């Protein structure tokens, strides 16, 4: 019974990682950059939704919409100001800039909302009780998993069937060729960041609902772990993000329960390192050899 409980919390945690990982993987696929600031956009989503609910007294679904709007705008602005000018620059420069943006967001949040953790009331409370009350699954967990699957299906349909989705796939294969085909690369990249950031907002709301607290640094570690999940599942692959996220969530939950709480993060990272050594493309990714 305990095992089941840990498994479920692992799947729930993994679903959040998967939603975040989607944002990473989409941006990496198209812009070939690791958006370090992604985790912090999650945090912003959390704060905006919190302010909407407590400060403005809005119902939770409106707060979520507001958070998604705010994060979308934030994501597009960041891309336009900080990343777009560096499209031709070496990847080291872009990575460092992304780190700068991440720090900027964290410290802005620190100044605006303070360092003290804020209590976050989950958007739904209550739980389902099974097996005579021995197993309790919170509604938040169920919502998280459901949202993750819904988003996954929606994104797969979007990239597969819609024009914009196909444009995104084209840009991730070959930007120059896509442009020659009449695709507006700038708009496509901005759209990718927009979608990724909107997903980050959802992830932020779900994450904060699970952990019921929020700090400026809340997004940082989940962001890093979600990137780990994206790489683990195969960067650039949507089902890879799902698989990677869920698996990593389960591994983390099990490690915390059965091996050591202190070393749970280390175990998650160790899994990443081993995966990158054994299969650099990840579980579902494809290896692209360098052209000489």
């Amino acid at each position, binding site marked *: 019974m305990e095992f089941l409980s840990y498994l479920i919390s692992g799947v729930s945690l993994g679903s959040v990682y998967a939603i975040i990982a989607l944002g990473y993987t989409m941006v*990496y696929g198209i812009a070939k*950059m*690791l958006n370090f600031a992604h985790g912090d956009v999650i945090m912003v989503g959390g704060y905006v939704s919190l302010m909407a609910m407590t400060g403005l007294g809005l119902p939770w679904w409106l707060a979520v919409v507001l958070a998604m709007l705010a994060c979308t705008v934030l994501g597009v602005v960041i891309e336009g100001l*900080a990343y777009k*000018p*560096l499209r*031709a*620059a*070496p*990847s*080291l*420069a872009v*990575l*460092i*800039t992304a*780190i*700068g*943006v*991440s*720090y*900027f967001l*964290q*410290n*802005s949040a*620190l*100044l605006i909302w303070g360092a003290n953790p804020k209590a976050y009331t989950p958007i739904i409370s209550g739980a389902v009780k099974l097996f005579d009350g021995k197993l309790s699954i919170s509604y938040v967990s169920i919502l998280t998993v459901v949202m993750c699957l819904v988003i996954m299906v929606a994104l797969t349909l979007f990239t597969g069937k819609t024009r914009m989705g196909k444009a995104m796939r084209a840009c991730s294969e070959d930007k120059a060729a896509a442009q020659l085909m009449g695709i507006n690369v700038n708009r496509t990249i901005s759209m990718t960041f927009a979608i990724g950031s909107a997903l980050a907002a959802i992830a932020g709301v779900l994450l904060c609902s699970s952990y019921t607290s929020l700090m400026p640094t809340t997004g*940082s570690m989940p962001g*890093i772990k979600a*990137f*780990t999940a994206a*790489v683990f599942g195969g960067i650039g692959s949507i089902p890879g993000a799902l698989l990677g996220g869920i698996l990593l969530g389960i591994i983390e939950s099990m490690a915390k329960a059965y*091996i*050591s*709480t*202190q*070393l749970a*993060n*280390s175990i998650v*990272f*160790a899994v*990443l*390192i081993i995966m*990158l*050594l054994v299969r*650099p493309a990840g579980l579902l990714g494809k290896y692209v050899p*360098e052209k*000489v």
Partner: protein
Amino acid sequence: MKKLKKTTAIDFVTYAGVILAFVVITVLKDQGMLTRSLKGQLVPICCYIVMAISLNLTVGVLGELSLGHAGFMSVGAFSGVVAAMGLQSAIPSEPLRLAIALVVGALFAAMAGAIVGVPVLRLRGDYLAIVTLAFGEIIKELINCLIVGVDSQGLHLIFNATGTKGVNDLGLLEGGKVLIKGAQGATGTQTIASFTAGFILIMVSLVVVLNLVRSRSGRAIMALRDNRIAAESVGINVTKYKLMAFVTSAALAGAAGALYGLNFSNLVATKFDFNTSILVLVFVVLGGLGNIWGSILAATVLTILPEALRGFDDYRMLIYAVVLILVMLATNNPQLKALLAKLIPHSRKGEEVNA
């Protein structure tokens, strides 16, 4: 040989500058003209300078982004503390003990560098960066599990993975001392670090890095940065030179860590986290990738400045972040680069570039 003269001149000025700064500051210190806060910062500044120089070797010279550099500092700090405190009775001379601690710190960090380097250096770019970050976090968590004590019988060590063990499980004899208390870190350390030792460490780092870069091995390392495939085509063993740069960088960071650890009576492993790694990265980027004297300047200025601007402490990291973004945008802007090339004579086309 015009080329040799120019880089030799720059190196000479770097050494001279450091020596001059040391002499001036020591004089000011002895005359009691330094503020208390500045005096307390002297050793940490030396540590951050060495951290910046060593990270520049990895990021600027080898061209690989390492986001876990603080991990090596951490390994050096805690092994240095254990060495210094463990040898307290055996070696009464403080400077000698400090020197041994620095070497021990460097050695352990070098080993960590080799262990991390062998798997990591097979990867490239972003993947390498995220894995170094992962290792930095792993090192932090592993050290948090260490419980170390010393008594007349020698060193006692417990790896407290499950969190169930405590100080009492060490089984120390009467008169024994606990050196590292798990997550609480190193406590009760005798602070034997000195500004002179810091100065000597900086000079050693300079000699190692500058001489390495201007030698055959340094050329090979830079070749890996500029064009790995071409480097292989001229018979350069990629793994060997990547490891060389990485391990040397780690060793120097370890020595800096040992000095840092012996400057404070209490030290926790969480001090050496991702934020510290980023801090040092900012020094290196702002000072110029591959530019050693730039790292020294940036590390010094950016460590002193927040103290001087106490009132703005809240905004410090925010300003760091903005400056970092602006510098990155500026240095990669084609129009700005062309403008700078016109203004600064030595970056004219056709002239040789400093490392």
